[in-house]
């Protein structure tokens, strides 16, 4: 490099770093997004712990810690960089715990974490490469122990016992609102109780209001877009309004959208980046599909809840939905029409 005799480099380095543009980047990264998701989930989870007792807290901690450990272990064995600091495994752990009932044996979150992280996520290539939602796939895998997965306590009876396995005598069993809906009657809880979360169910799914507030937080932070939750919940609302099982359409519709895991599923699980479409149009079709399948399963399936299955089924169509949803390229079509 030719040096000029009067060049001023007292403090300037002789050579600078040369790199392709852009030279500025956002401060947001995968970790900040995952932490945002956890912040959004936390109120609903804390409500679960308050409602269902200390055992709910234990299940959450076991689930999160196992997910992180399995992720580190799997990545170490597969000779990949260990990426637990991106917090994605912690989010999976939290979601898995929120999808379990408080009465499950304490080994279940561990088995679920193994299935979610090792089988569903790491074997398919790790973060962003899995084709189905890890936490939901684990939940469905755990239905191999259907009795344990569907033992709900009646609302208001706290389970503080931390013994690994609970006997039937240890709990006060209660039917969930979904079971009533399946039978064709509205639950004995008011719509307001359902909205606030004064009902039984899985640890993290009961309080619709807290889940919605968390969803609004994610929307304002730009973590999720409205397309999937609105399309999903909207489809369930419209279908149950048109085809109610009781005579009061409005009432029945409200129970259907507030019951079970719909809010948790539509806002937090169906919007999982890796397993949902990236295009707005794809996301809307995805949401509508999830809603349709959920109602079909709830009405005609053998099991009262359809959220998990519907999302897992739609997960498999994501690549096709993105092709359908491919945006109209700038400068095509409209130019010819307007000029």
């Amino acid at each position: 490099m030719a040096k000029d005799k009067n060049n001023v480099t007292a403090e300037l380095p002789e050579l600078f770093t040369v790199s392709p543009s852009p030279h500025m980047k956002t401060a947001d990264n995968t970790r900040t997004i995952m932490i945002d998701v956890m912040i959004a989930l936390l109120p609903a989870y804390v409500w679960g712990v308050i409602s269902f007792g200390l055992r709910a807290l234990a299940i959450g901690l076991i689930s999160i810690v196992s997910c992180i450990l399995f992720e580190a272990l799997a990545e170490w064995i597969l000779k990949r960089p260990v990426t637990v600091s991106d917090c994605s495994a912690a989010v999976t752990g939290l979601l898995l715990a929120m999808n379990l009932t408080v009465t499950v044996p304490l080994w279940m979150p561990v088995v679920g974490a193994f299935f979610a992280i090792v089988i569903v996520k790491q074997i398919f290539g790790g973060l962003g490469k899995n084709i189905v939602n890890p936490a939901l796939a684990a939940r469905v895998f755990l239905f191999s122990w259907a009795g344990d997965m569907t033992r709900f306590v009646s609302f208001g009876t706290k389970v503080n016992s931390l013994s690994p396995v609970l006997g039937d005598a240890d709990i006060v069993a209660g039917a969930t609102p979904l079971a009533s809906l399946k039978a064709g009657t509205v639950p004995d809880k008011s719509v307001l109780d359902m909205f606030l979360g004064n009902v039984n169910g899985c640890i993290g799914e009961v309080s619709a209001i807290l889940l919605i507030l968390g969803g609004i937080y994610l929307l304002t932070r730009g973590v999720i877009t409205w397309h999937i939750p609105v399309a999903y919940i909207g489809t369930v609302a419209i279908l149950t309004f048109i085809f109610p099982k009781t005579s009061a359409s409005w009432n029945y519709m409200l129970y259907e959208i507030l019951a079970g895991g719909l809010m948790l599923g539509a806002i937090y699980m169906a919007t999982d980046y890796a397993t949902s479409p990236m295009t707005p149009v794809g996301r809307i079709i995805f949401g509508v599909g999830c809603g349709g399948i959920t109602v079909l399963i709830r009405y005609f399936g053998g099991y009262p809840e359809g959220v998990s299955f519907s999302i897992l089924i739609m997960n498999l169509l994501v690549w096709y939905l993105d092709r359908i949803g491919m945006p109209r390229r700038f400068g095509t079509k409209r130019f010819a029409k307007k000029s």
Partner: protein
Amino acid sequence: MAYTFKGGIHVDEHKLTDGCPIEKLPEPDYVKLSMSQNIGAPCIPAVAVGDHVCVGTVVGAVPEGALGCPVHSSVSGTVRAIEDNLMPTGAKESTVIIDNDGEGTVADTVTPFEKNINDATREEITDIIKNAGISGMGGAAFPTYAKINSAVGKAKLLIVNCAECEPFITSDHRLLLERPEEVIAGIKILMKATGVPEAYIGVEDNKRDAVPMLKKLTKDADFISVKVVKTKYPQGDERQLIYALTGRELPQGKLPADAGCVIFNAATCAAAYNAFKSGMPLVKRIVTVSGGCGKEPKNVEVPIGTPASVLVEYCGGLVKSPEKIITGGPMMGQTQWDANVPVKKGTSSILLLSADYSKKPSLPATCIRCGKCIRNCPQHLMPSYIAQFVQHDDMEGAEKYGAMNCVECGSCSYNCPGKVEIVQYIRVAKASIRAAAAQMKAAKEKSEKN
């Protein structure tokens, strides 16, 4: 209501110098005039070592019949050397170095245009602009006379690009605040040259303070209107500005004239006016010196060819050690090897960025499929998919997904939480697709010959 477009991103503006009046740089000791100031053929040095030159003397001539603008000396003095400089792109640029004698003698070829603008013909104006070596001053540096010629008979609307959407840069903003009459006079000249009946001045709403003055100055010229556009990157991309102001989408490979528009940067308008008024070719420009490492970021009017190091010194030296030196904005500007890089006609800013801006991510770059790049792409592509095709060496797939439509604005890379260098993958695709097309063409020609 502000006009806008779909897609794009909000970047931290860092407009550190929007309150700094334009200062005139004291005469530098020497200037380095690159023979490749603009798009088109590089100039051929028209002087020899030891020649005496004045301000406005042609030092680089356009090859016969080629697209390009002549380069004029920005100082008076003696030609010290003509050398090849290695550019970061790997290309070599011929550069004429002139030692400044400080006299500022103006060449006798520099004379004001004798006629009134209303009496001048379109061809006369275009000739003045061509001989004054004016090329686009917003960054891309397309020869202005060629743009005028492409617009004649096709364009119905002249758009003045005052978006200045890149962070840090404020040179156009200050020009609009301090010398709006030059810009508006230039608009009228360019309207006459292109034969366009109407003009819009597109100003981003972070420069609202410039709007009242522009409106006042255009009160008696109802064919010029001031339009406020939303502050969003890349609003200054001509495709996005045309869309925001007219609703027309310019397809890939078409010129603004095909959408009935011709678009000039604010500084280009002012340069056209100065060439008309005093006959002085384009030998100086306003440069924003900023980036966060300098002591006093400033807007400085400098002779073309001033080395960046001189500007850094003029702006009080450094308070922070810089990692990169950039000509242009941080989103689309070019990093340079060293601080001797000279200001060119298209250099709107010299930025010194610290290592804070280029921190290495602690985790491996991974697409988490958040879809932000798709939402942000002003060309409405699916950048992450193109990047994945490139990762799997599937250039056909990349082409099918519109890699060639990419304008390389970098919105995708900027906002990627997975820290994937998306736009760089797309550049790889574009280069590879172009090479394949060239190869195919060559093979076809060969088989036709046989």
